[in-house]
């Protein structure tokens, strides 16, 4: 055959190929805009405050100082004090920790349920798919905030009950997302090629499907955490949030409301920090979406 000698040579001269990992490319695209970077910095501060807050806080969240009640911001109380003499700065630091624990925990619960059910529905198809997706439809159709309220009332107002109450109402969107992605890949050529090599379905799910949906999942998680923060605060506003004296943004904001004319700092600080945090998470999520977009260029 005339072309045989071609096969013996190597393909072109590519001895000095450039190595750029997927992660490097993603990071390059992420930092193209300043908002995701700024949001990332704030989220990082928020997370660090959540982890180290209790050690940094000058007071415990139960400490009261009646002689210094309703003080404006000062060196001793950087964010002022409330009517019982709670140090707002410390209250906020503890709130950050509670907010993080519940939001991250609840998102993780939703995520795991959503992942398992979505993967199952997408891979198995047929009856399993139909059944799971109808439950998902139900979850979307049913006002989930109402479900949250019912669950909190039934389970109680501690950290863990609230975490669960938010977690098990939020999985439907993850399930729907993963199912769609898996369904798309299941009939794709990558899976066909893997199957032609004798790969089993569990193996394909683990090594082929999950890693390939990971970037989309990360974006969904970044959107999911602020959403859960909002639900948590919304529960406080109707009086079904974390049971005082456990501080939370929702509680702080709800308590500050009636006194906003006399002691505005009680509203401004927690509401400002909370709003900034939500915005930052959304900027980060947007940035991730951009970074992982396969059509994003470099």
């Amino acid at each position: 055959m005339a072309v045989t000698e071609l096969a013996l040579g190597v393909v072109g001269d590519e001895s000095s190929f450039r190595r750029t990992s997927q992660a490097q490319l993603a990071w390059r695209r992420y930092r193209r805009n300043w908002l995701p970077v700024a949001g990332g910095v704030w989220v990082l501060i928020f997370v660090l405050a959540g982890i180290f807050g209790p050690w940094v806080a000058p007071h415990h969240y139960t400490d009261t100082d009646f002689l210094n009640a309703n003080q404006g911001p000062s060196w001793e109380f950087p964010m002022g004090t409330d009517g019982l003499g709670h140090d707002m700065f410390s209250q906020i630091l503890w709130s950050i920790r509670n907010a993080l624990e519940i939001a991250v925990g609840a998102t993780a619960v939703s995520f795991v349920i959503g992942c398992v059910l979505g993967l199952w529905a997408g891979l198995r198809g047929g009856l399993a798919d139909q059944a799971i997706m109808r439950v998902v439809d139900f979850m979307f159709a049913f006002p989930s905030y109402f479900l949250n309220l019912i669950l909190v009332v039934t389970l109680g107002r501690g950290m863990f009950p609230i975490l669960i109450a938010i977690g098990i109402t939020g999985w439907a969107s993850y399930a729907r997302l993963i199912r769609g992605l898996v369904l798309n890949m299941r009939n794709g050529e990558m899976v066909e090629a893997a199957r032609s090599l004798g790969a089993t379905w569990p193996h394909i799910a683990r090594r082929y499907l999950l890693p390939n949906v990971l970037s989309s999942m990360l974006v969904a998680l970044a959107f999911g955490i602020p959403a859960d923060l909002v639900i948590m605060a919304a529960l406080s506003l109707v009086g079904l949030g974390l049971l005082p004296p456990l501080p939370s943004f929702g509680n702080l904001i709800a308590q500050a409301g009636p006194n906003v004319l006399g002691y505005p700092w009680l509203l401004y600080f927690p509401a400002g920090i909370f709003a900034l945090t939500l915005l930052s998470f959304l900027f980060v999520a947007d940035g991730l979406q951009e970074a992982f977009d396969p059509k994003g260029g470099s």
Partner: protein
Amino acid sequence: MAEDLLTVENLQTRFRRADETIYAVNGVSFSVAPGETLGIVGESGSGKSVSLLSTLGLVRGARSVTGSARFMGTELLKLRRKQLEDIRGRDIGVIFQDPMTSLNPTMRIGDQIMEAMITHQYTNRRRAFERTLELLDKVGIPEPRARFKSYPHEFSGGMRQRAMIAMAIACEPQLLIADEATTAVDVTVQAQILALLDDLRQERKMSIILITHDFGVATNFCDRIVVLYAGKVMESARLEEFLARPAHPYTLGLKASVIEVGQRGRDLVPVPGMATTVTEPPSSCPFAPRCSMAVERCHQEVPPLRSMGQGHAVACHRAEEVMARAS
């Protein structure tokens, strides 16, 4: 001739779409001898891929696959899923059309090649690593050690197809199925890939089934050719016989449609019409509506596949006339 490696007999594959049944493969028979290259030629939708992939359990949503497909004495259609998984990748390797989408973008090239060997317990991890380097070298990928760690996006199309070949031959299969393996790559790369496959075949005494719509590729590369149309074998013969005495109007049409270099001015003679989806069992020659030689009989009777001697088989009522006209 030695015992055939793969013998497919009267294979029928059906799909269900909405409320109609698609007759994708309607009684296809062919066989491959050890070390032989068989070309399966046909237009898109002629059932060429489906006929092979359905024997391997790789076609999803197939409503029924009947007939027989014996591979080294084993009836593939009767195997359980687990047994088929053992055969795929170990005894039968498959290369697909699009190397851009067939590799896992999250896995290193080397790991993907090793994976097949480890799945089939072909060898242990260390030996598999060494063998992967040898394979990368063999398929013509430079600097195997560095390239082992590359991800698919760092490879060009031709190199990805080479990596796919390395994966398919890792466990030294007796049969390699190349499903439009050179369709998505440049012509120069196509020549390289075909040459590589031919080398591998000679070196390992491996059989190759080349599924292609490219008549030119098939006639330059294969020992024997099967022409499929609407899920039926139209003609099958050894290459020399096939080129010298084509006996089916469709084959003539395919030949006239090949575009050769430097033949401007020569009239291209396209086959009129389009291949259609078959939604009911054939009751006439499926090619009759597009055939220039069709007579009344062609619209009423299914032409059986009859032997013309020397392993040459044709499904045409007027094969003798076609043959006379062609030569």
